[in-house]
């Protein structure tokens, strides 16, 4: 996707690329090595991409969600079970709602974030504080 989109953004001298990693990309996760490795790769990929595209005013950042109540995960585990599993480790006492993540993505598309590139934004209620 980035390979296809970046040249267009470079040509127009503006653009925002938002990639999605995970807190597991920083902490690792037992029995999820491929997932964690892939997510760690996204973080570094995005940093490299940010350095490559910065001269053309194209910004690339990563959002790293923690456990989030998306339909896909909610099918496998109830909200109650998820909260019991996670809440003792989350200072804000709940798992994320998709809207919590959307706010971060949205901020990273606004003029207010024009000086931000190559960064990783963890949104996880304090579960992980790298």
């Amino acid at each position, binding site marked *: 996707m980035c390979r296809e989109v970046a040249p267009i953004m470079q040509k127009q001298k503006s653009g925002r690329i938002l990639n999605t990693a995970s807190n597991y990309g920083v902490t690792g996760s037992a029995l999820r090595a491929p997932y964690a490795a892939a997510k760690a790769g996204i973080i570094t990929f995005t*940093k490299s991409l*940010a*350095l490559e595209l*910065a*001269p053309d*005013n194209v*910004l690339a950042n990563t959002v790293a969600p923690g456990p989030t109540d998306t339909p896909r995960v909610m099918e496998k585990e109830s909200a109650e079970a998820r909260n019991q599993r996670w809440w003792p480790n*989350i*200072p*804000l*006492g709940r798992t*994320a*709602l998709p809207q*919590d993540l959307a*706010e*971060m993505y*949205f*901020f990273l598309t606004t003029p*207010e*974030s*024009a*000086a*931000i*590139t*190559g*960064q*990783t*934004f*963890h*949104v*996880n*209620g*304090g579960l992980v*504080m*790298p």
Partner: protein
Amino acid sequence: MRLKDKVAVITGGAQGIGRATALMMGREGARVVVADLQGEKAQSVANELQGMGAQAIGIAVNVASESSVKQMAKAAFERFGRVDILGNIAGIYYPKAAVVELSEEDWDRTIDINLGSNFLCCREFVPAMRKQKSGRIISVASGIGHYGMRQFSHYAASKAAIIGFVKSLAREVGADGITVNAICPGSANTSMPRQHRSEEEVMERLRSTPLPHILEPEDIASSILFLASDAAKFITGQSYNINSGNYMF
């Protein structure tokens, strides 16, 4: 308006990032306490806010002094009755000195102003936030807290410690609906880097970032505003780098 009727206390609000933050929050509907060692300048920013139609007061404070911070908090509560946002922005950068030449006095002064201020201000305002079960604390650290800087070990240590302080406090007060985060700016177009670099050096440094974007105080203030807004209610214990791509942790 993202901060309608919120009360924001901004230390270091007389100039640079603090001033930009105070003005931005006032524009977003906040009632602002502009607190700064330079009382007259703080009042001037408060006057500017009032001119924009925002409620604001300027207070002279020494953020490294327990009694002065207590007085500032008392004045803030007397004027507005509550506090929703605390921006710990006051800080010093100078003097420049190698570790082996740095005086204990300069070390202590930097640690007290940059780090001690976070402790003193949070200790004064957290109880009120706890009672109301909500609050936002945003502390300004620095990228130098991550990567260090020769002849600025005192500054680097104070800023790195802010990040540890923020994470710890975030864990303490999360259950009370209070978020605590740090912003780590890169070198910004303020008076601070001009204390030890020529204008030419400052501008060259500001232009040397990967992104062709000179980092202005408003770039930092807008991220502080984001963290103070409802949009960031699920973010705590984080330290976000705002630096035109200068470093990427």
